[in-house]
């Protein structure tokens, strides 16, 4: 299968009439891990939700394509079927729907009529994915996220990602609320997927998970724009110095920052 390409170009987004994203340009390919860091309110989650098609976000300018397909023309479930996945910061609790049943429904929705996954194949894959994430197999029969701790929800997001095998995954603060062991396990889960037919965009506040992921690309977002991009060392610099080291630059060179070519 061809290498996936998620191309975001000059993306402007408003929420309730207020501009939140002010021209984001970013390309993510297979075999790549990108990280976006930035202070609260910078627009990181807005970018993730806009990519997935949350109805609260309005695109006013720019384009997003996955493998050349205009994602913005698709509804949320069609984007997922096209191969996009979003691990959410605050996953919903769905009472009465077990994780296992839901995952089978979702896998079959992507496969289409007549090619449903066999129960045995499904169970094998589920057991394998749960082992990889050190999850108790009982989780599969619990109602989706209901009564889960913060860490359990995050692991469940990664489980869904492993099972659905997307082409591009966006992970929104997958590391927040996790203890150090869980961060390592989640990072291993993600790393195990990275290959020519999978790429990921990781949104995080903390450098910690990046020490496991070693992303090839790190972007810093401030006020709806990517103001600086670099390799993994940018995350280390940020961790050591905080966002302050960016301020003068982002104020003095807004145009350059907006283009995302730093």
């Amino acid at each position, binding site marked *: 299968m061809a290498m996936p390409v998620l191309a975001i170009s000059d993306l402007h987004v408003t929420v309730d009439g207020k501009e939140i994203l002010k021209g984001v340009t970013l390309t993510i390919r297979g075999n790549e891990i990108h990280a976006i860091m930035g202070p609260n309110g910078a627009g990181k989650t807005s970018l993730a939700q806009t990519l*997935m*098609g*949350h*109805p609260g976000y309005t695109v006013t300018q720019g384009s997003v394509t996955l493998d050349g397909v205009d994602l913005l023309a698709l*509804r*949320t*479930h069609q*984007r*997922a*079927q096209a191969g996009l*996945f*979003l691990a*959410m910061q605050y*996953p*919903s*609790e*769905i*009472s*009465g*729907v077990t994780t296992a049943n*839901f995952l089978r*429904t*979702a896998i079959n*929705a*992507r496969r289409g009529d007549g090619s449903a996954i066999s129960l045995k194949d499904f169970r094998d894959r589920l057991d394998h994915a749960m082992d990889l994430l050190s999850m108790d197999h009982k989780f599969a029969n619990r*109602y989706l996220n209901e009564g889960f701790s913060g860490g359990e929800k995050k692991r469940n997001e990664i489980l*869904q990602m492993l099972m*659905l095998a997307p082409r591009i995954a966006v992970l929104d603060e997958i590391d927040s609320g996790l203890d150090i062991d869980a961060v390592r396990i989640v990072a291993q889960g993600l790393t195990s997927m990275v290959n020519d037919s999978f790429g990921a965009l990781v949104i995080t506040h903390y450098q910690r998970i990046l020490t496991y992921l070693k992303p090839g690309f790190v972007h810093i977002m401030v006020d709806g724009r990517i103001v600086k991009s670099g390799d993994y060392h940018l995350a280390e610099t940020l961790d050591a110095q905080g966002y302050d080291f960016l301020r003068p630059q982002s104020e003095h060179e807004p145009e350059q920052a907006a283009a995302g070519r730093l």
Partner: protein
Amino acid sequence: MTTSPPSLESLQQNDRDRVREHFSEDPDWLIEQRINAFFEYLHTPILARKRTPLNHRQFENLPLFTQQPPELGGSWLSAEMSDGLLVLAGSEVAVLRPPAGRTAERVIFTDLRTAAMTHFEVVKPYLARVARAANSKFDALNRAWWQNGVFLFIPRGVQIAEPFTVVHHQVASPGFFPRSLIVLEDDSEATVIDLYVSPSLKSGPRSLAAISVEAVVGANASLHYGSIEQLALNTDAFATRTADLETHARMDWNVGSFGSGLEVSQQTTYLNGTGSENNSLTVFFGSRSQHHDLEVTSVHQGAHTRSNIIGKGVMKGRSRSIFTGVTDIKQGARGSDARQKEQTLMLSDQARADAIPSLLIEENDVFAAHAASAGPVDANAIYYLTSRGVAPEEAEQLIVEGFLAPVIDAIALTEVRQRVWSAVREKVRE
């Protein structure tokens, strides 16, 4: 049999003769009971339900019976022929399979008319005894005109795990009056499922159903009871379900209301004996312009009695529901524990649901609690599920099924559980 279909109006003349003529094969004591019940019907005011005006519905003008032969839909007959199965088509017995096992000869499981003739010594003391306490006009109507129904008698100490299933088929007759009488002697246990079905859900002339269920549960006995109502939308259904519980008796109600254009139900459990327990679950699903007015009452008379009333509903279209839970704790019912919970999921902004908890407490040393909530499907939950590739319509179905799953999956009776699920899925897809 009469030569012309009687209506309630015409029956006000020469009532006795009409009843005698229509039920000429019944024993005298039963005819007398029917006549008394009919007078009671005429003199009992119609149910006062604030949110369900009934006065304009003109039940008096409905002919009760026609001479058309019974007509059976095939689906229920082709269902698995388990032991302990009774299928009734109006007054006719279509299938009767006795329960399996060694204790079967002491158990009575037959249609109510046969039982009234061949087991009158057991039927007579119980028939209409419990239900009369409910003081329901429509139960009186049923007592006067019931065509058939089921009689189950479980003698002392007999426990039967396999369910007794009764299918009450509404036939092409405007009046439908099925009656169930269940008697469990001390230390016994049984499971009974009443299913009420029409040949077609959508077509046919207007009809009136008065459904009655009465249960007597002896000391230390347990009755697991299920009822699923899937009558046609042209039916006005009135259900009166009443149970008497003796010391340490246990009653489980699993009631599903899915059919009928109008359903008004009155379910009353009398916790007479010390330590008796009532677990009542009602699942209702309204669509189109269905109107369900459901009332579930626990009357705590004995000490240390426990009741738990749960109502769980889904509302579509322009449907309307009223769920009233009544906890009535009498003086002397000390140490009692009574709970109520009602939740409704609204799938349409044109539907309406009211939850009315009512607590009447005459005793100090008790615990009573209630909770009610109603709301639309969580848009974030739909978004979350669609983000995994599930279409929005399917996501809504999952959420509806998930909303009901904790209560439906807790139904111990496999057959009821499966039938409730298929009824729910039919309604979701409707």
